[in-house]
């Protein structure tokens, strides 16, 4: 039984790499690890003081106070530290887009309207420089989502310490993404500028017609899938099979109430598992969402209110409003500046404006896992789940105190080295600083 301090582990890991290319994915767990005497935030709202977590063979085998390590377990002393489930980024283009402004590095938006058969996983680049910077802040899983068109394709959940996308796959193709047609009276503000005529008629009506076309697709898919053999195979229909079998969820990206109502209508008509993404106006119909069992992924906490009339902190307060109404929701971080690593601070903001800290934590761990359909193996520090664990010196939701000392994915202690740290080292060296 060896006892290691966090510092020691961090030291070993930092010796591994000189460049981003040398940040290696960790090897499969070969020894039990016993994290002792920490403040354990289970992820389901429970906090255990002076508690321990033991992980073996990639799984959590024990959690609680007064438990003892197995023989030969490596003991990591977490006294005075906080132990969390690994954080989950629930909607992201991670690994699909490297540099936003460079077309050649962007693989998130495919051509076409109904792209049900498009799969994000096959383009997920495990060597993206961004990925390691997320682990640095405790993010261990991400839902990688294709964009564009009406049905963008399927998303997969990946774990962030992998050699290639097959290794990375954590839940394969388990979500289909639908961009709800606009049911909002919004004239294209750029129409005149672009020299295109705004389409005539009521945009809401137009949106509803568009919606009918999508429904037709699913109706036809249903009939197609009920047949055992086909003269002509339709890849698009095949791709949504899981929706009807409830092996896939339908993620509906939308914002305004009419679009949310249309999403509810979708659920009623096809009995899909529907998840709203974005849904900045969801607070208006929270009751309906709860009653219809429709969860929400809030894409970006750090946003401006929609209208000058809104409360100045409405986006910050939105999770609190959904919590109060009993809606299941996850907090996400989707922006163009690759700040997915700020996920915990998004949740922290929500905690400042209406959630408890543990509720805020759930919104980036267990709730996200439930919404993504991976709560059987991720999202909380509970026996039987994967060993996805993060240890922080202080409150992980606050940048003032968040100092991540250890991140474990499926029982593997992963390297926390990243390009940022390497450049930091390089220039500290240049200036002779410590």
């Amino acid at each position, binding site marked *: 039984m060896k006892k290691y301090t966090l510092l020691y582990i961090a030291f070993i890991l930092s010796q591994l790499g000189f460049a981003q290319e040398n940040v290696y994915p960790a090897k499969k767990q070969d020894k039990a690890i016993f994290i002792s005497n920490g403040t354990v935030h289970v992820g389901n709202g429970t906090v255990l003081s002076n508690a321990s977590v033991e992980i073996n063979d990639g799984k959590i085998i024990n959690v609680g106070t007064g438990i003892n390590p197995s023989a030969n377990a490596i003991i990591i002393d977490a006294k005075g530290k906080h132990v969390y489930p690994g954080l989950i980024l629930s909607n992201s283009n991670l690994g699909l887009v490297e540099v936003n402004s460079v077309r050649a590095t962007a693989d998130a938006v495919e051509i076409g309207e109904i792209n049900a058969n498009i799969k994000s996983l096959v383009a997920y680049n495990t060597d993206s420089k961004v990925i390691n910077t997320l682990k640095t802040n405790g993010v261990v899983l991400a839902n990688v989502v294709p964009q564009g068109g009406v049905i963008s394709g399927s998303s997969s959940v990946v774990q962030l310490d992998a050699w290639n996308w097959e290794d990375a796959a954590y839940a394969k193709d388990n979500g289909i993404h639908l961009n709800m047609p606009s049911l909002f009276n919004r004239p294209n503000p750029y129409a005149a500028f672009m020299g295109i005529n705004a389409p005539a008629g009521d945009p809401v009506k137009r949106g509803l017609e568009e919606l009918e076309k999508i429904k037709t697709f699913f109706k036809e898919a249903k009939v197609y899938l009920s047949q055992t053999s086909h003269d002509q195979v339709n890849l698009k229909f095949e791709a949504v099979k899981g929706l009807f079998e409830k092996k896939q969820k339908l993620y509906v990206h939308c914002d305004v109430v009419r679009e949310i109502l249309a999403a509810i209508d979708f659920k009623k008509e096809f009995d899909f598992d529907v998840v709203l993404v974005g849904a900045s106006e969801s607070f208006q119909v929270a009751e309906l969402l709860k009653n219809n069992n429709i969860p929400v992924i809030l894409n970006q906490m750090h*946003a401006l209110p929609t209208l000058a009339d809104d409360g100045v902190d409405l986006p910050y307060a939105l999770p609190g409003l959904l919590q109060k109404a009993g809606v299941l929701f996850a907090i996400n971080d989707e922006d163009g500046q690759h700040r997915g690593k700020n996920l915990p601070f998004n949740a922290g903001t929500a905690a400042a404006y209406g959630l408890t800290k543990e509720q805020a934590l759930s919104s980036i761990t267990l709730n996200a896992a439930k919404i993504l359909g991976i709560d059987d193996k991720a999202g909380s520090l509970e026996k039987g789940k994967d060993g996805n664990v993060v240890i922080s010196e202080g409150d992980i939701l606050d940048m*003032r105190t968040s100092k991540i000392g250890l991140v474990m994915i499926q029982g593997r202690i992963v390297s926390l080295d990243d390009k940022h740290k390497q450049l930091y080292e390089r220039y500290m060296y240049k200036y002779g600083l410590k």
Partner: protein
Amino acid sequence: MVILLGCFSISLFAQPTFPVNGVADQRETLYAFKNATIVQDAQHILNNATLLVRKDKIVSVGTNVSIPADAIVIDCSGKFIYPSFIDLYADYGIASPQAQGMGGRNAYLNVQLNSNAKGAFGWNQAIKADVNAGAIFVVDDNKAKALREAGFGSVLTHQKDGIARGTGTFVSLANVKENFAIIKEKASAHYSFSKGTSQQSYPASMMGSISLLRQTYYDAKWYKNNAAKEGVNLSLIAWNNNQSLPQVFEANDKWNALRADRIGDEFGVQYIIKTNGNEYQRIQEIVSTGASLIVPVNYPMAMDVEDPNDARFVSLTNMKHWELAPTNPAALEKAAVTFSFTTADLRSPNTFLANLRKAIDNGLSETKALEALTTSPAKMIGVNDMVGSLEQGKIANFIITNGNVFNEKSSIIENWIQGNKYSVKSEKWYEIAGAYTLSVSGEKGTKSYSLQVKSSSAANIIGNDTIATKFSFDGKLVKIGFPAEKKSSNNIKLSGMVNGGVWNGYGEDNEGNKFTWTANLNSLAAISTDTTKRKPASKLGAVTYPFTPYGWTESPKQETILFKNATVWTNEAEGKIENGDVLIKNGKIAAVGKGLQDATAKVVDATGKHITAGIIDEHSHIAAASINEGGQSVTSEVRIADNLNPDDINIYRQLSGGVTSSHILHGSANTIGGQTQLIKLRWGANDDKLKFEGSDPFIKFALGENVKRASMPMGNVRFPDTRMGVEQVLMDAFTRAKDYQKAMWAASVGAKPNPKSKTPMVGADPTLVVRRDLELDALVEILNNKRFITCHSYVQSEINAALKVGETLGFKFNTFTHILEGYKVADKMKAHGAAASTFSDWWNYKMEVLDAIPYNATIMSKVGLNVAINSDDAEMARRLNQEAAKSIKFGGMSEEDALKMVTLNPAKMLHVDSRVGSIKVGKDADLVMWSDHPLSIYAKSEKTIVDGIVYFDREKDVQLRKELTAERNRLIQKMLGEKRSGNPMAPATPSYSTLLNCGDHDHSHGFLTIEKD
């Protein structure tokens, strides 16, 4: 009819030089309009008076006018005669201008850097000073008719295109030859902020338009003495010639009105300002311009907000403007502003009078309304010797009405223009309503009916039954149709002519028999006296400052406040004081310490709270009407200060995040951008009061991808296209600035170079010889340490190159902003003396930020640079304290140092650390009281104070939200009331907001926000 009128007109206005095809037909007809109520002008009303008109002029007017024998007499009993109205903002008779030459739908696709105007014109296509409306004016009787029917007799018309629009011509609305329709050929000169059909890249912003106007004033003055250097420049010649005319500026917004007026002040010009009707929102500022206004009456329609999904996105501001827009003229009257009305901005002139009446219902006096339609416009452009009132010698432009013209029930019967009669509603001339005996004489003898005429379109036959007839009367001809028997389908049809109380005509009965008929008046219907009641004034919402949600009805005042028992982060040698007190008084920090007392102070128990200096954002783009002037690579002449926008809700939102000062920067579209403006977030103040008074002037520079237009989809044609070119843009601009400074010195007779003077040009006015160049003026200021650079930059090579240019040419980079690779050249920056203002952790969104690291701020600090964390983002500015806190995590910066990065450090960078940035006695009371540790994610500002005034108070904010909800609801109900009353409604339109940014990276904003760089 048109042809007839044309003949008539030509005979009235025979032109000596024009040959006649036929026989001469000169007429000197005299008209006498007697027994009228003559409204000479708003102050002089004559009862039972006579107006004599010969040809196109008024001969005399009065109650004792003897009517000459040669007069054609028109009895105007019961009629009113007013001067015809005047509209100063028309484009009547002026063809719509076409874009010249190449142009793109998308300015970025085909950037047109130079003017496409062919000929000896100036460099900028938007300066169309040479356009002479008189030369392109063509009578357009269709358009004239619509204006005549609204009561107008003459208009000032010009070509509404460009920033300088040339001269306007004052014309009558008579259908006569242009030679006579033009009353004053060059009556005005016109300006605007909009470049119109010009596709030239510059100017591309409000600031650029302002700068172009200012530069053109200077150029025109210089050109007077230096024509040989410039060659023939028709634009500047015309510009100079136009200066003696009344100068009219289309501002179309309250803040634009102030912007225009300030240009006028600089050049000794008082513009007449065309507005858009929102002046009531800032009436004091409008008064301060001293300008006469041309005011439209295009009041918004109520929106159909029945569906709450639609109502949700209609902003309070738009609903309030709907309610208050008709109060605008009354507000102007109350403030004693001189103004005139225009039909401009209305979809059609035929709604003009109805809208004007709305203004009267909302408090405008009828006297002022009439003045604003007659004498005021006439005086504003100096044609009051010819039009505007009914006086001897003036042009015979008058309307005849059957009652008070502002009364809803009155009609304009005729509009006489230059002595020509134009019928408007001639059927209203005669009061035909009354009882008549109708006698039909056919083969079967004469049959009499009793005819009851109700109006020009309704009459009944009264017998055993009352039979409704088909009746029409057009002022002369009358038609009557009615069934012989009550239920008969065959009508008796009568057609005749009215001559006072006697009507004669011809008809056909139900069996096809022809007959003649007469009708004789027995008794006129009693004339209803003015029964129109002014609608009782409905309850109106208050004007708030600013005119947005969370605006003040009563501005908060400076207070004396004693904060007790807080954790005070002084940013001074005392460091952090636990259980400390802060006293603020007269807008300043009066005392800091423990156990403070002040009997006059309001005491705030700050136990458990934290007090810090207000947050200062070194890089912001809020509160401005435009941010980027990308029309050229060097635009140091443009100034953010020229276009501040105090109505930006982001001022209030950022106060809620503890921000008290923001440095509003030009964007990054070009290497040498525009002059910046430091503001204090004084929510509710006007544009001038937002400025951080006495602060040093700064300017924005930019390097790298943005200035070489790397992300333009169709490539770039504007120099520079590489970082090599960017360096040379800097070299060239400052080399030119140095030569310019030398030339100015040389041109100053008897003057010596004086580097200490703010303007080195002393002695005689050198600008008579050397063209004053606003662009180079700003660069000369930099060379003389009178203006300071904040330079957008990312990669080490470009930072290094910029430093070398500065060191070679003798100027300094005060600050590098963004500076994401600053950590790589921190030593060089330190040697240069530059400060750094950066983001905490943005990276990888474009090629030049691939090496950005969240440790940047820490490394630069450790090397010894003054480092700030900025926002460059309206959302993130609300969390700058937390962005700074990331440096604790990345690199281990101390908490106090981290806080300084958003308070004291930017204050130093901006040279205002003697005023703000720390909690020190004597500094401005710009403070934040936080609910929690100020670097924590859980910290919320409870009070944000600027100059000792609490501009944001979290408790008061709760109250404001309640009031806002109530006010929204009241207005929605009021709009629905309009719908129930059957008034025309507009569909509910979401209220979009435009958010300006530097064009550098993505931002996260709501779906009603349209982003623009």
